[in-house]
């Protein structure tokens, strides 16, 4: 079965340096890479444990990242020096408010965000707007939950980049 849907990619263009934007993101988003979250998840037995685990890994923004690709670093092996870093990140408690409506939400959470330096030297923060990823599932409760996540994400990206909507 094949379903067509339309996704909106948002790109905030910042005049800040790449290093400053990355530092601000990493200060705001907890580091749950290297299985800190996924391994811990296998051990939880109840909702209270689960929420405690998630909250222990959040940064001040209420998000944690679970996987980081420093694409600029590994691509330097190929003689292609670029500044680009992608994070897989999210908030498992918010994810629960989405995935409880449709298990297929798991195809799109945790979210991805990409920071890169464009040829003009500006820093771009790019992400697909969550509500546009989930509309395909045609669930009004899910859409309502996604609208809240959109607002949180747009506010976060606007603050990080200094480039509001």
């Amino acid at each position, binding site marked *: 079965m094949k379903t067509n849907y339309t996704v909106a990619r*948002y790109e905030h263009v910042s005049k800040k340096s790449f290093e400053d934007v990355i530092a601000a993101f990493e200060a705001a988003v907890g580091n749950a890479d290297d299985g800190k979250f*996924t391994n811990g998840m296998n051990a939880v037995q109840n909702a209270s444990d689960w929420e405690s685990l998630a909250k222990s890994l959040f940064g001040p923004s209420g998000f944690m990242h679970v996987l980081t690709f420093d694409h600029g670093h590994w691509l330097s092996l190929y003689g292609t020096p670029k500044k680009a870093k992608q994070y897989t990140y999210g908030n498992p408690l918010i994810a629960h408010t989405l995935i409880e409506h449709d298990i297929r939400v798991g195809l799109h959470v945790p979210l991805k965000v990409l920071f890169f330096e464009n040829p003009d030297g500006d820093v771009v923060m790019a992400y697909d707007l969550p509500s546009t990823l989930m509309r395909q599932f045609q669930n009004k409760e899910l859409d309502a939950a996604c609208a809240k996540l959109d607002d949180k994400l747009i506010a976060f990206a606007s603050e990080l980049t200094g480039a509001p909507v």
Partner: protein
Amino acid sequence: LNVNDHLVHRLDIGVNAGYEALQRNFELAVPAFDRERHAQLIRDGGNWDDVVADVKATAPHDFLIYWKLDIPPLLRTAGHATRCCEYLMGNHVIAETMFRHDPRVTLYVPLRVLLLEDPAGATRFLMDQPSTVVASLGDDRITAVGRDLDQKVSALLTFLGAEAPVWPPAQ
């Protein structure tokens, strides 16, 4: 702020195998990326040709798993029992052939794959068709690589015992 609206095709393919068999076969066909081995290769002075050779030797279907999330533990405490697992699947050598044209492709690769068992007990393989995702970048060179990825996904689905979609040959 730049906003780009793009059309994506989601594939939702039934697989003629039980969930455990599907997951086992998938993880055999798409091995986990060995970060430590990759790091050792670089520490030993390996160059990009060595990276390419290593991927070729370890990815029989040209894909590796970079990350995996078993969903049930996430939802067990909410009373859900659906078996479901999310993967980030890709190939960093192929990714480079797109990244060299536009770094934004790394918002979309590695590709997301979801294996699940639906309420009727049927197993399904879900992902967004690669070419339709990377086509959003508007670069024909990247879209061509995406079409090649479509073919690789079809071959993987055939290996898994699914009725794979048929797409025109990649140019």
